[in-house]
């Protein structure tokens, strides 16, 4: 698969890989290597310029537009720039995926509170993003990404703004989610993080090309999800 923005050189070229259902992946590479671009393809914000992407067993490149929302709901995303909704409180930001899925207000109170407590922001639930620190915003973004128990979690540098203690805690959150069956992809260049999850595999991007240092990708998985 390849991706080209406009008429420039290909940002991603000749990537071939598959992610196993229930796997835990780290996506690494220097800044500008194309990590965010690759995640964008996976969370359906972008179609590749060429090639094939299958997600949950279906070709998402040629999929009609109106089927995409259903797929997006199965994916949780932590954006590199958080993308919190400015005028909504932390609570409402976290509740967003549930509201999109049509969950009634009375049914989302408990899970959202629990999730905010989990990321240590129970006391800031009515705060607007602008009044939160970078790290707090990032935790809201993470809470929002995982609240709907996605089948695939894509996190773009999710620990870039938090202290090591919180990074550990957040990674633990991803880990528990992964144990419950969610496939996790974390883009990061924090090697300490990678070492923490023993069973994880690493995808290395180098100027838009994939390198496969662990060799994990050489064996085609039996149940590919992406």
């Amino acid at each position, binding site marked *: 698969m390849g991706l080209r923005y406009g008429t420039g050189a290909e940002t991603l070229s000749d990537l071939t890989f598959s992610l196993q259902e229930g796997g835990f992946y780290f996506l690494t590479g220097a800044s500008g290597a194309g990590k965010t671009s690759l995640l964008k393809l996976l*969370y*359906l*914000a*972008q*179609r590749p310029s060429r090639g094939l992407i299958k997600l949950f067993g279906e070709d998402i490149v040629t999929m009609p*537009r*109106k089927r*995409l*929302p*259903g*797929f*997006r*709901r*199965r*994916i949780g*995303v932590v954006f590199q720039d958080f*993308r919190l*909704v*400015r*005028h*909504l409180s932390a609570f*409402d930001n976290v*509740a*967003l*995926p*549930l*509201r*999109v*899925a*049509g*969950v*009634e*207000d*009375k*049914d*989302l109170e408990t899970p959202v509170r629990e999730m905010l407590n989990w990321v240590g922001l129970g006391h800031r639930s009515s705060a607007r993003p602008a009044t939160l620190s970078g790290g707090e915003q990032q935790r809201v973004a993470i809470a929002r990404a995982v609240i709907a128990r996605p089948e695939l979690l894509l996190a773009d540098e999710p620990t870039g703004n938090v202290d090591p203690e919180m990074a550990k805690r957040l990674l633990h959150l991803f880990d528990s989610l992964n144990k419950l069956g969610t496939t996790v992809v974390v883009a990061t260049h924090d090697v300490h993080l990678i070492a923490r999850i023993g069973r994880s595999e690493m995808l290395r991007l180098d100027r838009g090309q994939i390198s496969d240092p662990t060799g994990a990708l050489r064996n085609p998985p039996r149940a590919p999800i992406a």
Partner: protein
Amino acid sequence: MKPSPRKFGTADRGLLPEGRITGPMPWVLAIMMFLTVLAAAAGLGLGTAARSLDADVGNSITIQIVEANPDFRNAQARIVISELQKIPGVTSVRRLGEEEMARLLEPWLGEGGLEADLPVPALIDADLTAEAYSNLQIIRDAVAAVAPSARVDDNAQWLAPLAKLIAALRWLAAGLVILMVGATAATVVLAARASLDTHRGTIEVLHLMGATDVQVARLFQRRIALDALFGGAVGLVTAAAVLLVIGNRVGALGSELLGSAGLPLTSWLLLGALPVGGVFLAMLVARITILRALGRLL
């Protein structure tokens, strides 16, 4: 979880910052609605006037017998009346009496003008069925046969220029209403686009979370519907107040034609329905605009 809900959860209210009444949009819509209601009221009022004009003079004729000799004149008048009464389709015949004539001529001759031995024509009013009215020639022939000096006047003829003016004004009013509807739609398109721009970030996030176009469009639709409702209500109330004041002034004039231009209840109901129509139009236009814009996202 429902597979593809059309709505957000119960409280999607907060998803877009829902200012009370913000920005110029509701006020612009209020002005549009004000002008639309006035134009529509003028059209409806003129319609009532046209109908009452028709009822007053419709299918009626006046026969004038211009004869200097009063005896001769009266004799001819009697013959014409009896002749007219024989014609099928003539529903009533009546000679205008001395007093009525005096009243009609007073503005020209002054009080007591008729007392002078002025030769005044005899006037005979006749009401006809629609069928007889459409074949006036039969009556003209019959009258001419007995009274060659008599003149048959079609009353509607006198008012034809006025009727034409009223018709033209009604078309103008209808045209204005249509233009206002177009302008309202254009305003809503602009407002919807501006709103989309303002909330682009929020829309993108909702979109990436799997919100459908219809879900997102509903948020905007409701906002714009609220603006339109406010604008419509303000416009309607103001226009109604203006119409009532004008109605009072016209009543004070005592003019028969203008007075007949009053609005019956059905017309008021129609005017009241305009803002409702405006809200639906705004919602529809907003929905189409937003769905088209969202269609451009992946």
